[in-house]
């Protein structure tokens, strides 16, 4: 096992990784920017290194500073968390070149699966159904028009170097395709430094169902069931749950097997997530694969009892996955609400500032992953998520009732948060019924706007 792990991230995920290290008896090193000197992850670590000024690009994204921090502290391994450098293949390679074990997949795996068009191909070859779309990259608008004709509108023009809901442009007819195609390429170049695009049919009213997988260096691959992440705003997840109200045992088995096949086909190791779209007819299609631990991983941890971060660390140290597929089952129901320092009344505008009072809910079935504490100053330089609130119950109803109760208990004074939004969702008939899809939130928003307009 590793003698020391450097956590190349901040906030709640840095804390999360450090907790796993602590349980495994591994000393930890925190890195931080000047803005994060008083951050909880710095206080919890055994050692801390300041790597740069507040701006993320000069600190948490500074490859040289981070590798240098590994050198001066003697860190044997590095966990990248999520975001920042977690899916940066060059960084993974540099770690390897400097004898630092990167806790995650290899650079080659990241490149293959990070290229969305290539990932589709890898999955397709493994017999995983993919969203009907172009056979690889689309070079020009004429080719795009031909393909769109065959697929049927509406279609989505997607950046191959994109992902996570970014770099996508819809076209509902030929006119929109003609104007949108070049714009999509320009946007992709600006955002990802790569103008390559491909085409996908837009699946109407789908659920976003993702499968957690684990792969080790001994060829074992398991899936740990699904998470339903359909409640999204502008393609950013707000609420996730497991199991999905839209997935029954047979579908779970079929999708899980497909996820494992695809993961094996990619030769993947460490923790990963295979994302599918599930249409109203019960057909599922591969969308993309995330080669990192995800924000919503605790949802799976609660319904399976597996510590995903400890598994990641073990896998990186050459150990076998600790769980067997036939012993893995989903028990009970877990829901996660992402609490952001944003004002739902002002279109979710970010609200950095000082949290003067912070009381975290507790009691049965409640888990809170947060880096915030009373007196903490939320810096404006980073993302606005301040806590993940999870509720576990024997049934979905119990999980919802616990979440409702926990949201009422959660006290955050000093900044606006999305707690009221989540409370409203726990009472929302569509959410409670379990019959929702990725368009649900947008439709609610439109309905509300129309109502206000009519008054």
């Amino acid at each position, binding site marked *: 096992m590793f003698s020391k792990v450097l956590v190349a991230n901040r906030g709640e995920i840095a804390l999360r990784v450090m907790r796993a290290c602590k349980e495994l008896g591994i000393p930890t090193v925190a890195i931080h920017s*000047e803005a994060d000197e008083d951050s909880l992850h710095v206080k919890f670590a055994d050692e801390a290194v300041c790597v740069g000024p507040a701006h993320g690009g000069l600190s948490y994204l500074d490859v040289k500073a981070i590798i240098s921090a590994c050198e001066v502290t003697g860190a044997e391994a590095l966990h990248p968390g999520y975001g920042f450098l977690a899916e940066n293949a060059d960084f993974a390679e540099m770690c390897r070149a400097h004898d630092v074990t990167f806790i995650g997949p290899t650079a080659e795996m990241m490149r293959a699966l990070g290229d969305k068009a290539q990932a589709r191909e890898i999955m397709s070859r493994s017999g995983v159904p993919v969203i009907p779309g172009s056979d690889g990259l689309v070079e020009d608008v004429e080719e795009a028009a031909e393909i769109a004709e065959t697929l049927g509108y509406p279609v989505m023009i997607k950046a191959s170097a994109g992902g996570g809901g970014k770099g996508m442009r819809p076209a509902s007819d030929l006119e929109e395709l003609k104007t949108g195609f070049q714009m999509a390429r320009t946007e992709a170049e600006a955002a990802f430094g790569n103008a390559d695009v491909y085409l996908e049919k837009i699946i109407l009213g789908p659920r976003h169902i993702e499968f957690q997988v684990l792969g080790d260096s001994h060829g074992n691959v398991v899936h740990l069931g699904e998470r339903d992440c359909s409640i999204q705003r502008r393609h950013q997840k707000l609420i996730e749950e497991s199991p999905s109200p839209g997935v029954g045992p047979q579908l779970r088995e079929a999708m899980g097997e497909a996820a494992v096949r695809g993961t094996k086909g990619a030769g993947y190791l460490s923790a990963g997530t295979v994302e599918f779209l599930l249409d109203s007819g019960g057909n599922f299609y591969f969308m993309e694969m995330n080669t990192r631990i995800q924000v919503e991983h605790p949802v799976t941890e609660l319904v399976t009892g597996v510590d995903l971060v400890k598994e990641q660390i073990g896998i990186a140290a050459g150990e076998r996955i600790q769980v067997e597929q036939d012993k893995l089952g989903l028990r009970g129901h877990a829901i996660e609400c992402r609490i952001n320092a944003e004002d739902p009344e002002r279109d979710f505008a970010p609200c950095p500032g000082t949290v003067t009072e912070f009381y975290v809910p507790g009691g049965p079935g409640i888990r809170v992953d947060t880096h915030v504490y009373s007196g903490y100053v939320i810096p404006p330089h980073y993302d606005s998520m301040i806590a993940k609130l999870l509720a576990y119950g024997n049934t979905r109803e119990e999980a919802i009732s616990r979440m409702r109760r926990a949201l009422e208990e959660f006290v955050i004074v000093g900044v606006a948060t999305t707690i009221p939004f989540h409370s409203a969702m726990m009472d929302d008939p569509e959410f409670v019924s379990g019959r929702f899809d990725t368009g649900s939130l947008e439709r609610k928003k439109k309905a509300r706007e129309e109502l206000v307009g009519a008054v």
Partner: protein
Amino acid sequence: MNRRKIEELIRLVEESDVSELTVAGLFGSVRIVKGSTAAAPATVPTQQVSVTAPAPTQSEDSGEAEISAEDRDSGLVPIVSPMVGTFYAAPSPDAAVFVRQGDHVSKGQVVCIVEAMKLMNEIESEVSGTVVRVAVENAAPVEFGQALFMVEPD
């Protein structure tokens, strides 16, 4: 350990009944002694702070660094490390040090090396003035923003 933290610790000691406080971290330790300047044994790397006595008394060869509580008031400017790495006072192990206590430095003058990932980075002074003290031990690890030298500007 940065200046702000050291100042906080000095204030803590001043305001309490504590006569001596030592805080150790990766980048050195700080020992604060109330009363006279205590001659501490040379431990590596150690910064000794005396709350009452103003004048530095360590010899430049001992490698000991000192940041006086009056630095803040006397207008001393730190030369800080722009990166994470290892501090070297000289261009090579057998060469003379770039600067020693008491030397005058000009803006743009190379004052030390910080090695990061096997690359030797020459660190230039951003200020012209006199080096009042060397704040880091040779071959010690340094972090971004850490004070390397304290300079009295011209």
